[in-house]
């Protein structure tokens, strides 16, 4: 299969996936208990005003009608209007998404910055000793196992409250991103470092590498040309998984650092049953994840052309 055909087919198969996301989100958010009008109404709203609101929001229509309406507007590029803010959902996403992407990218960058050197160094050292260092396991485990909010709180107290290097919170200067990026990146680095270490060790022990080493290929070239490219596949895979998790799950980090990303908005939208917002936001996140995985599959193909769709 040619490369172009591979990519074209790969793009085509994401369409039904996107459609599935659309249908499932619509069904999920409507079938779970909880009522948007009750949430907006609270205990203070006149019951009659609340009843009118239900009618206005179109919640009295039968579900199939609601779905067809929704599908129709999505195809026109309209994701509806938020129940809560009365803003077009596309506008909400357009305002928040850049911050989320920025934070996610910074988090991944921070994670790689920490994990690539640690992972490779540890692998090279252990390849010699043939066992895993206790300190490596301990450090990476602590990276991963420190709960987000504890890690965030520690970072803030040390680097923003006691030593005032970084801002406590907000997104008003460029250095505001450092602490939230570290809070996202450190757990990621814990996972990445271990996967990097494992796959480097694995590749370094493969017969072809041993053969190359035996015939006298210099260690530096071996590492750069043979070991690292082959070891990068699990790392890239993990990155794709984590990217999705970071995109949707930066919630706690966003809350601690008052970062205006999409995570808190999705959380709020679900919590307050803002149906159009939930649908739109999850759809966009899903499209992003599908897109990233598409890119990653293409990258696989470039690294190792033998991997095809079939």
């Amino acid at each position, binding site marked *: 299969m040619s490369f172009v055909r591979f990519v074209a087919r790969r793009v085509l198969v994401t369409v039904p996936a996107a459609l599935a996301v659309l249908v499932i989100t619509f069904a999920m958010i409507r079938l779970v*208990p*909880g*009522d948007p009008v*009750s*949430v*907006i*109404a*609270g*205990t*203070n*709203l*006149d*019951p009659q*005003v*609340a009843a009118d609101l239900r009618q*206005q929001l179109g919640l009295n229509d039968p579900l199939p009608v609601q779905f067809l309406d929704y599908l129709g507007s999505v195809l026109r590029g309209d994701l509806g209007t938020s129940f*809560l*803010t*009365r*803003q077009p959902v596309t506008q909400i996403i357009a*305002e928040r998404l850049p*911050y989320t992407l920025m934070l996610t990218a910074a988090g991944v960058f921070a994670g790689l*910055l920490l994990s*690539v*050197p*640690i992972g*490779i*160094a540890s692998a*090279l*050292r252990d390849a*010699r000793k043939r066992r895993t260092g206790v300190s490596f396991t301990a450090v990476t485990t602590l990276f991963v196992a420190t709960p987000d909010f504890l890690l965030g*709180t520690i970072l*803030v*107290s040390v680097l*923003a*409250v006691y030593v*005032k*290097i*970084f*801002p*406590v*919170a*907000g*997104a*008003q*200067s*460029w*250095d505001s991103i*450092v602490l939230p990026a570290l809070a996202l990146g450190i757990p990621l680095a814990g996972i990445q470092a271990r996967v990097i270490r494992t796959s480097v060790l694995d590749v370094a022990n493969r017969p072809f590498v041993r053969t190359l080493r035996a015939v006298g290929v210099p*260690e*530096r070239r071996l*590492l750069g040309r043979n070991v690292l490219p082959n070891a990068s596949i699990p790392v890239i895979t993990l990155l794709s998984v984590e990217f999705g998790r970071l995109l949707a799950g930066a919630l706690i980090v966003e*809350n*601690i650092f*008052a970062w*205006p990303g999409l995570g*808190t908005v999705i959380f709020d939208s679900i*919590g*307050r*049953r803002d149906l159009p917002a939930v649908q739109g936001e999850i759809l966009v996140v899903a499209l992003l994840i599908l897109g990233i995985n598409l890119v990653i599959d293409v990258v696989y193909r470039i690294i190792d052309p033998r991997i095809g769709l079939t």
Partner: protein
Amino acid sequence: MPSYRTRIATRLLAGAGVLMMIATAAACGSGSSSTPSADQTLRIAEAVEQPTLDPAKNIQYLSDEMAAIYDTLVVVKSDGTIGPSLAESWTIEGASITFKLRSGVKFHDGTPFDAEAVKYALDRVVDPATKATNSKSVLGPYDKSEVVDPQTVKVTWKSPVGAALINLANADLSIPSPTATKAGTLEQKPVGTGPYKFVNYVKGDRLEVERNPDYTTIRPDLTNKGAPKYAKIVFQYVTNVSTRANLVSTGGVEVAQLTGPDAKRLASAPNLKNAKFPGVSETALWINAKKVPDVNVRKAISAAIDRDALIQAIASGYAETNYSVLPTIVPGYDKSAGGAVAKYGKDDAKKYLESAGYTAGADGVMTKGGQPLALNILSSAEDPWPAIDQLVQDQLAQVGIKASIKTEEFATVTQTRRKGDQDIYIGRYGILDPAGSMNILFACANVPSATVPLGTNLTFNCNQGVDSALAAAITESDDAKRAGLLSTAQKLMAEDHTALVLYQPQSVVFSAKSVSGIGMQPDGILKINDLAPSA
């Protein structure tokens, strides 16, 4: 070649270290430049962001930033009486109020403020196309507005509304510029007559406003009647209370409201001062009268609960005890009404249970006819409710009442509580206009049922006496008579023991020493125009 590998490993580790140091150093360099001069810009951390900046479409009640941008026709003073703002004076005849408006006031976009603007704003609230909720609920049975002359407007309701003026002081009935509203740009670029003009809004992060140099006001509750003292205010949205505490303590913002352990922690911080203000919401325990019909059992529940302990443990001491269902600063509040509520006392609680026919079983649980007294508590799963649930549960256990807890996500609990399967619901309610709000919370017509699915009376109790007192209070325009009716309603509610106030949280405003003029309106909004740099 082990030595070579070790060298690579060492180099890589060193590289990681150096990169982190560079990042840190670079950040250090820029840290100082981002601090604005405090005497010009004021930064306020806000816990809650406004869903929209269009007052008519808003669904949130408290809002400092709306009060910075917009003005209301009248204001509620701290003694609960009404004072002028955009309206100079008014006369009440039956279901109509005629307002004499201030002249020479202009919206930020240059549009003159006049009777047309008021009529347009109020008509818009009831226009179905606006899809207003809260503002519509606040405005009540509005009929029409008539422009008598450019500075006179006559507002008419379908029936007399005793609290019409209190309602018009609500930020949701702020008067926006008709020009901006018609242009449909109000939500992106709000335009009012307030002390500050809109500059910039980054959703989820901050709202920036700048001084309106032409601002004057006749509001009697403000000290500063002229232009604001700060050139600019930045409202920074920070949901997390610990983050707000860290921001205000490190100088990231100058003003922040704090609660709980964070408020306690910073109470003695040398670089901060704090001011406490009475709240307008009540943390309460609703007893479902359909499930717990015996008033003696309800009294026992009330007597089992140590409210002081709740205030210390849950509110870190920043709350007041209150036994009436109305907040202490609301006009019509009657302290004596709370006298009928059973106060804390474990022995009293047991006596009430005995008079209800219960006897202590072997395990200490009170039983009647072989049935142990077991109740279920429902609440939202969000902070601070589970903590309160658990404290109440343990205190009930100490008098022999076995209680179980069920917490639900907020969106679900707002539905579940209306089904009425719970014996006890623990939550919060706010009071705006006392008669109207009490009617929503306690009237017979609002008991949830198949015909009233969105009913709001969580006591599930119908007390005709409360009903008629409230019905009369709603239409009563005479302040003294209305207070008398409200007092009756409060006393009856106290005797019923169906809605027990656990405590009334205080608002605690922390600020840098450089800020003076910290004050709060009775509705919990900061007196924005009084804020000034300390001399």
